[in-house]
């Protein structure tokens, strides 16, 4: 697991403290009842703070799983690096 994934997993763990590491990797809005609109905004704000990136909520509205969020964070971090 690389550093970005670890840091993202920590954001998820803070917002969904009842999830195990394994559950976090497989988490999606369909599988996690607690992942509602309020949790989604909390999660995105937490991620924005962790990675120092200004997240566009509309862009991330469709990011409905850990894997999808990870992909977007990697893309945004790379863009920020450029």
């Amino acid at each position: 697991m690389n550093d970005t994934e670890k840091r993202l997993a920590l954001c998820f763990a803070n917002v969904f403290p009842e999830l195990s590491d394994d559950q976090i990797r497989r988490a999606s809005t369909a599988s996690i009842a607690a992942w509602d609109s309020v949790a989604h905004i909390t999660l995105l704000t937490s991620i924005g703070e962790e990675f120092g990136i200004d997240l566009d909520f509309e862009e991330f509205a469709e990011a409905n799983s850990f894997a999808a969020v990870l992909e977007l964070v990697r893309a945004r971090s790379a863009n920020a690096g450029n």
Partner: protein
Amino acid sequence: MTLNQALALIRSARDSGGEKQPHCLLCGFEPLHLKTLFQAHLLERLPGSAVEIQTGIYGDLPGGLAAAAESSALGAAVVLEWSDFDPRLGLRSSGGWAEHLQSDILASARQRAAHIETSLEKLGRRMPVALAPPNLPLLPLGNTVSAQASVVELELEHLLASFLSRAARLPGVRIVQRNRLDRIPVAERLDAKMELLAGFPYTVPFADLLAASLADVLYQPSPRKGLITDLDDTLWAGIVGEIGVEHVSWHQESHSQTHGLYQQMLGHLAGCGVLLAVCSKNELTTVEQALARPDLFLKSESLFPVCADWEPKSKAVARILRTWNIAEDAVVFIDDSPMELDEVRRAFPGITCRQFHGKDPAKVWQLLGELRDLFGKPLLMEEDRLRQASIRASAQLDEMGDEAASPEFLRSLDGKVTLDWRITPGDKRPLELINKTNQFNLNGLRIGEGEWQRALEDPATVLAVVSYADKFGPLGKVAVALGKAEPDENGVTRLHISHWVMSCRAFSRRLEYHTLEGLFRHTGAAEIVFAFAETEKNKPLRDFLRAAGIAPPAAEVPNAGAAYRLTRDAFYAQNHVLPHETVDVKI
């Protein structure tokens, strides 16, 4: 605190297994990050506990206030924004604010303010409430440029100021100081995007500052009780022993106004019940002459005791602490000399030492602000006014030595002990006594305001609030016993005392025996069980328990944490001297 720090703190506290501490956060908007940050700031102030935050329904502040007033929460934070006074003042409204609507907006705001005030009154009677006034900018209501205030904006500000000054007088309600939030400029508080997207109006840094302020207002540190001040180049400018009584100064015209400001601050603190004493390396007669100058900005009788000699200052500080009978960590020592401060700090590490910089007005201004925070309390009580005089009376008794403890002498005082058995949640003095008394304290356990109010709602609760007055004057409410009277399976009533404290100002008057007699008489209990625990400071209580036959002699104590018991028969068989008239106050 960042949002991630708050989330991590909440997560780590999640499995602490601590006692549940429910609190309410009430606002008209979606609480979102404010809820997270408020919970985290409360966890910092209530370590080891399981803080829970209950919120209301979006857009229904009145409903949230009403529900909270019926809840078992221990405290509430109420956060107002302009849209709570009229929805048209919020970003998510489409009602408009054109000039022809403004008189209606003002009328509606007045009506809603009155409604909120009524709800706050009910809430404040059940739990402590921290109330934050609107902190976001108003919509561009005026016809003026933004540099010029418009009439309607001023009308709304006036309405708000009037509402807040009334709310601040409601029992249990405390207003968050608006200028404390000025660390974040108004322009950096509103997150318009988040408000429109999710109904949460604040930037995260502002939500953090607001959450911290709400927690600070709800859970305030114990105020210090006494201030010991130096004289030369501190209370006044100049060395009185060198330049003479007439030439030390503290006035604007003699360029020593910083000392005058300090004197006025001490005068203000004395009025708030803070004990003041002098510790100076000087001749006592010279000091007495200087303190008798009529142009002094504080009453010289506010200063007691006045210690002036050539001994190390730590010795005088020790004498003052004995006279006041308070712990060193309740005291602030102020001197212009770093060397003297260091000498006192080494002898009394618990004392808060501050240097007085008379030639630096900015530092003096900063010191005055710090003194406000060190001595500030939510509410002034009658006992604050009486404290200085009763310390003097106690000192007179101490000078009499053993004679002052004799039954004959105590009877000659014309003392009157009042035992008030009424459950009065609005009276904050008993709670203050429990939370600041160390020496005569059954177990050192403190109680939060909300926990206190919940305890008073229990029908089994017994509360004795003890006041005392004699020919030297009133001491006010000086002792509290809190417990529960419950019958066992045989119908025999036992009184379980969970808290028992008595102010050190009331020592040596046998009020503790009057209290025990009152507890047996009022409750009809066959036995009193004391939830005793030894603390670093409660030796006076332990000595009393032994003297009253409640605890065995020190050498025989098998378990200092054991519950001690006293039966009615054993108490009355001992024929304790009760030297004062006793008056019971009941419903």
